[in-house]
């Protein structure tokens, strides 16, 4: 059976490869910082389950140090020149898109059809995590196909992967670290405190006010937490259910659906939603790490207004 554990081993080996190759990259003056960072990440993926919780915590701190204090450089693995790339693009044609598109195709196929597939009564994929496992299987298969077809040097995918990974740099662990911060917030009761403030100090006497506070609150709280999933239970328990649904007799399905979408407006505006906003800025080599957020701000504002009005127009009518 292919489990999440298998995927973690694959990822651990890849990050471990980045670490080793970084150590030999003399073009990077901070190469040992990179080696430490990728090496620690590899250790987390390979041995995380064998470590105790506080040891994993120490590992997180050890990852934050090189990432947070600028000890990472950007390796320059040997790659092709722009001229060579243009020549290869002409030579390979549109088939170049095939391996890239194979990944979502396999991921989709796995999610839809391989869930039930069994070999000797054992399921092929671990059903609880079928989406992410299918994605990893898709990546591995597509990479194998690309290697057989393009026949580069064996180490080329690791070197090219390291080139991109160094470019993203510390932001690589940001989404995972933010998810961990969310766990600390939950443990410390941050959500409850926000809910108390919202209900104690904001005007909520009329249906329209309740709708505005709920929608804007969802967006604002999501912006702080970086995740609408964290904001939804808090805001809905504090305002959505007691006021919009119970006191003013609104439709709970409409309240919840549009409330969640109001939260997504907040996601568009915050560096806390790292995989959507900060990571692409790094991947696209933007000089301004908030470049993507700036483009999204007007849409986020307009969509929040639209959602608020939409909820007010619909929630008390159906």
């Amino acid at each position, binding site marked *: 059976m292919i489990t999440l554990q298998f995927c973690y081993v694959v*990822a651990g080996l*890849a990050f471990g490869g980045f670490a080793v190759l970084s150590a030999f990259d003399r073009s990077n003056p901070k190469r040992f910082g990179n080696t430490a960072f990728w090496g620690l990440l590899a250790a987390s993926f390979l041995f995380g389950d064998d470590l*105790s*919780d*506080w040891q*994993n915590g120490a*590992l*997180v*701190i050890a990852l*934050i140090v090189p990432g947070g204090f600028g000890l990472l450089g950007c390796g320059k693995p040997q790659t092709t020149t722009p001229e060579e790339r243009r020549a*290869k*693009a002409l030579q390979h044609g*549109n088939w170049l898109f095939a391996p*890239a598109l194979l990944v979502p195709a396999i991921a*989709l196929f796995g999610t839809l059809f391989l869930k039930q597939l069994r070999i000797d009564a054992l399921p092929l994929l671990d059903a609880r*995590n079928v989406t992410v496992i299918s994605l*990893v299987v898709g*990546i591995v298969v597509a*990479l194998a196909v690309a*290697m057989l077809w*393009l026949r*580069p040097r064996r180490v080329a*995918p*690791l070197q*090219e992967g*390291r*080139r*991109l990974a160094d470019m993203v740099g510390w*932001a*690589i*662990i940001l989404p995972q670290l933010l998810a*961990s*911060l*969310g766990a*600390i*917030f939950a*443990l*410390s009761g941050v959500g409850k405190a*926000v809910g108390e*403030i919202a209900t104690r100090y904001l005007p909520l006497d009329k249906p329209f006010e309740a709708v505005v506070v709920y929608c804007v609150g969802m967006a604002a709280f999501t912006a*702080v937490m970086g995740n609408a999933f964290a904001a*939804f239970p808090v805001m809905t328990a504090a305002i959505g259910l007691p006021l919009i649904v119970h006191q003013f007799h609104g439709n709970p399905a409409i309240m*919840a*659906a549009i409330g*969640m979408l109001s939260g*997504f407006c907040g996601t568009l505006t915050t560096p806390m939603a*790292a*995989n*959507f906003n900060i990571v*692409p800025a790094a*991947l*696209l080599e*933007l000089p301004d790490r908030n470049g*993507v957020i700036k*483009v999204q701000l007007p*849409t986020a504002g307009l969509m929040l207004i*639209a*959602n608020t009005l*939409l909820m007010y127009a*619909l929630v008390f009518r159906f």
Partner: protein
Amino acid sequence: MLTLLGVAVVVVGFVIRLNPLLVIGAAAFVTGLCAGLPPLAILSALGKAFNDNRYVSLLWLILPLIGLLERHGLQERARMLVGRIRVVTVGRLLLLYFILRQVTASLGLTSLGGHPQMVRPLIAPMAEAAAEKEFGPISDDIRFRVRANAAAVDNVALFFGEDVFIAIGSILLIKGFLQQSGILVQPFELSVWATPTAILALLIHGTRVFLLDRKLKCEATPVSE
């Protein structure tokens, strides 16, 4: 109330542009200490959560594949493809991607897109090529704006498309939460009421993307003189 100090750390940290890893590390400890947790318990909670959330980072496995394809001219091929089609502009290309991304997301196919898989290797180079085709050599400023817009299209289309699908995570979360509170709703009802917002998102962001062509034209003209 004191636990909100950690939230303040996050906000201030991001505003004065400290390194986000340090900000998050500090926020975790400030929040935990304010809630009365001993430091070792915070460290353990952080470690456990980080370990449990490793699947979040699995997507990075795509980097070796994308890098390898880039080595063999993937971005250049994407540019060539756009260069051949005469009617393509930045705005039209991004609008087309917006619609494709939103429709597929609303069918639950959220993995048919994303920043490492689609935007960096394909959509951003295509959009840049479209801008270069129209305006000639473009300034870095415009280049970065075009790229940022490509990323934004992926996000907006995904966020306001996925909830139309009945089995997406957020719909299941809503259903589960309301059920705990004694209210039964069907996923289908939720996805129906997500549809008006999806349409408005298409209209609002679609219009902005469409107007991008005109804005770029105004700004690009002085450069090509």
